[in-house]
């Protein structure tokens, strides 16, 4: 067979992770920013703007985890124990975040508590996801098809930086989403937040980009050796252009534009990650081919993805379309 199924699967998983990061990213970002909105109507608008879609968005995380398990079982079996406390923290954060959508309105006496749970859960999940990313990039100790480090190896200055970077990026997505979906005082506040989040995201993105090549010679070569640099250099260049456009759009009070520019910055970040890590799934230990499931498994799933993914994208798009437009303050009458 001419096609490299394993490489194809690496791209599918990368697509799933990217879809998760941008879709649940803005949900989590709204959670992170939530306490800065005025209690009452502004927070209702923020919550209303994601209530019908958050569950679908979170499903991409299950696809990312399930897909990794299915297509690259060995990577799944090594990365999860290596980042154990982070994964548990993320799951617990997502529990608080997820139930808050329903619980928040069940009892006015509990409202403040569930709003804080929504926000705290979102922040913990975002930080944990960013730190998992950092932990993979900085390398994982492997022996005998198993994780061989201790259960605190993931905690380094680098992972703290990636954690903050992802949280800031999510905040940017959340703020620009709210710019698009809200109006009045909530929107004015969202514009202010989007400005700050843009600067925070760019600063942390820059810091991570400078730090990463210092971690391993492979990363250094990828980014700075000729002739690859000619291709790789396009990524930061495009990022700078999009960021400038984003700031300009925010100043000009664009409605939907800032959100899509923020998505573009995330896409470039993902491409940057791909440049660093390809073709490894655990740097210097495990390539995608080492970790791959056999062809029969990958082929069987490819059929499933091919048949269902167009449908999933279609009805997900439809669900977004149904709830298009500004959320308003009092629901839909």
């Amino acid at each position, binding site marked *: 067979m001419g096609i490299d199924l394993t490489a194809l699967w690496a791209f599918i998983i990368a697509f799933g992770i990217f879809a998760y990061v941008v879709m649940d990213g803005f949900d989590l970002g709204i959670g992170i920013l939530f306490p800065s909105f005025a209690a009452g109507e502004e927070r*209702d608008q923020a919550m209303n703007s994601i209530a*019908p879609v958050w569950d679908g968005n979170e499903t991409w995380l299950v*696809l990312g985890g399930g897909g990794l*398990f299915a297509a690259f079982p060995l990577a799944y079996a090594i990365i999860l124990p290596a980042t*154990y406390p982070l994964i*548990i923290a993320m799951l617990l954060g997502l529990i608080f975040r997820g139930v808050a959508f329903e619980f928040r309105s069940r009892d006015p006496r509990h409202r403040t508590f569930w709003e804080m749970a929504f926000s705290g859960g979102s922040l913990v999940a975002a930080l944990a996801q960013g730190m998992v990313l950092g932990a993979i990039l900085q390398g994982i100790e492997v022996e005998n098809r*198993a*994780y061989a480090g201790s259960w605190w190896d993931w905690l380094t200055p680098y992972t703290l930086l990636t954690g903050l970077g992802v949280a800031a990026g999510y905040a940017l997505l959340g703020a620009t989403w709210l710019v698009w979906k809200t109006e009045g005082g909530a929107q004015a506040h969202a514009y202010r937040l989007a400005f700050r989040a843009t600067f925070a995201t760019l600063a942390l993105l820059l810091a991570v980009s400078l730090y990463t090549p210092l971690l391993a010679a492979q990363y250094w070569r990828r980014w700075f050796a000729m002739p690859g640099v000619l291709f790789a250099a396009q990524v930061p260049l495009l990022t700078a252009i999009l960021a400038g456009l984003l700031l300009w759009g925010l100043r000009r009070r664009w409605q939907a534009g800032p959100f899509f520019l923020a998505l573009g910055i995330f896409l470039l970040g993902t491409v940057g990650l791909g440049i660093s890590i390809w073709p490894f799934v655990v740097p210097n230990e495990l390539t995608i081919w080492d970790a791959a499931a056999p062809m029969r498994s990958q082929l069987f799933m490819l059929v499933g993805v091919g048949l269902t*993914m167009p449908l999933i994208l279609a*009805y997900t798009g439809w669900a977004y379309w149904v709830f298009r437009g500004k959320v308003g303050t009092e629901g839909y009458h």
Partner: protein
Amino acid sequence: MFDNADALMLARIQFAFTVSFHFIFPALSIGLASYLAVLEGLWLKTGRQLYLDLFRYWLKIFAVAFAMGVVSGIVMSYQFGTNWAVFSDKAGPVIGPLLAYEVLTAFFLEAGFLGVMLFGLERVGRKLHFIATLMVAGGTAVSAFWILSVNSWMQTPAGYEMGANGQFLPGPSWIDIIFTASFPYRLVHTVIAAYLSTAFIVGAVGAWHLLKDRANPHARTMFSMAMWMAAIVAPIQIFAGDLHGLNTLEHQPAKVMAMEGHYRSHPEGAPFIVLGIPDSEARRVAFSLEIPKASSLILKHDPNAPLAGLDTVPEQDQPPVGPVFWAFRVMIGIGFAMMGLGLWSLAARWRGRLYDWRWLHRAAIVMGPSGLVAVIAGWMVTEIGRQPFTIYGLLRTAGAASPLDAPAVGASLLAFVVVYFAVFGIGTWYILRLMHAAPKLHELGVRRGETGPIRTAGITPGPARHVGGHASPPAITGEG
């Protein structure tokens, strides 16, 4: 490096705890989603406001239960990797694709249409909304299909090849992997259990409101529908359970020996031990109340058929008897009690007193949570009864766990216990409060939050009309 035994036991407790808690919610979502589809279908067909009211009443409860199912379910999809890494590495090529299919064909379907189902009636109109409800209900059922296929493969593995690196690899046919020997029985038994559990909850809520007001038409409809389910489906479930048991006897005899408490073989017909205290030290059931030869009659359809006991199984391959024995009795006890309630309701119906017999209503309230208890007991039977294996006969549980230190597993277990009891405890309380409020005419739907005591709002209620009248459903405004 670390204490294997402690970390292993903690990991097992953690999985048992998180999966038991989790499964309560899907059992409820599977049943409620279908019930909601039936209610909405009846509303569309008959135009009776009553069905729309009931739909909205249960939709609010469904929303809370579904949210808890989603968040506790995500934990499960990562537990394989965090706590059972060796199992994940070895079995991933075979069961990973099945789980991926579950995500692709079920989770996205449920989640994608849930928003429209909860909030979209006014935006998309009745027909499309009904389709969204059907998609959510269908998604829950498809999800059950795949996850039970995975579980069945682990119970009765087939269709695999062994790789040189110790991995289980898929053989030429995925059909053999998906449809293993125990799968059809497990699927039928589990899905019926979900429907029956939900019916008993609906029945209990109906009975609760009948006790307060026996003329309440909504309570009457709920109670009547639930009691039909109890009368018709409980006997079917007992029959399906019996078939599942016979299938288990064929493929996992040691599990049945533990269920029966048969430490020793009975060459001339085995008794059914109704009650007793299994004593694994002495290898006998103390204080046992037995029906002679009944076990052989049930399992072999011949009172004198010989039946092997655990003395024929090597000690290192035996499951623990106590929990399996007890959980089995809880499950079948509840099953027969459910059938009894169904028969009682038939008698009441026959006499035209279904809404008048107070003791029937009280019994239905007591039986409300029984289905969920039976479901958990049933899972304990099948999962503990499979021990000491994770993949039956092939991979031992002791050899499947992640290389984790005991403190890591212990700390995360503690965190799960605290968070689950707090969060899902409060969630259950919210559900009980929703159930406590009487269903009424022009029941309010689920709404995205406005600032108010309870997140509900009516959809342009039409002029008051009598329940059961022939008027068409209230007009639903489209956009805007």
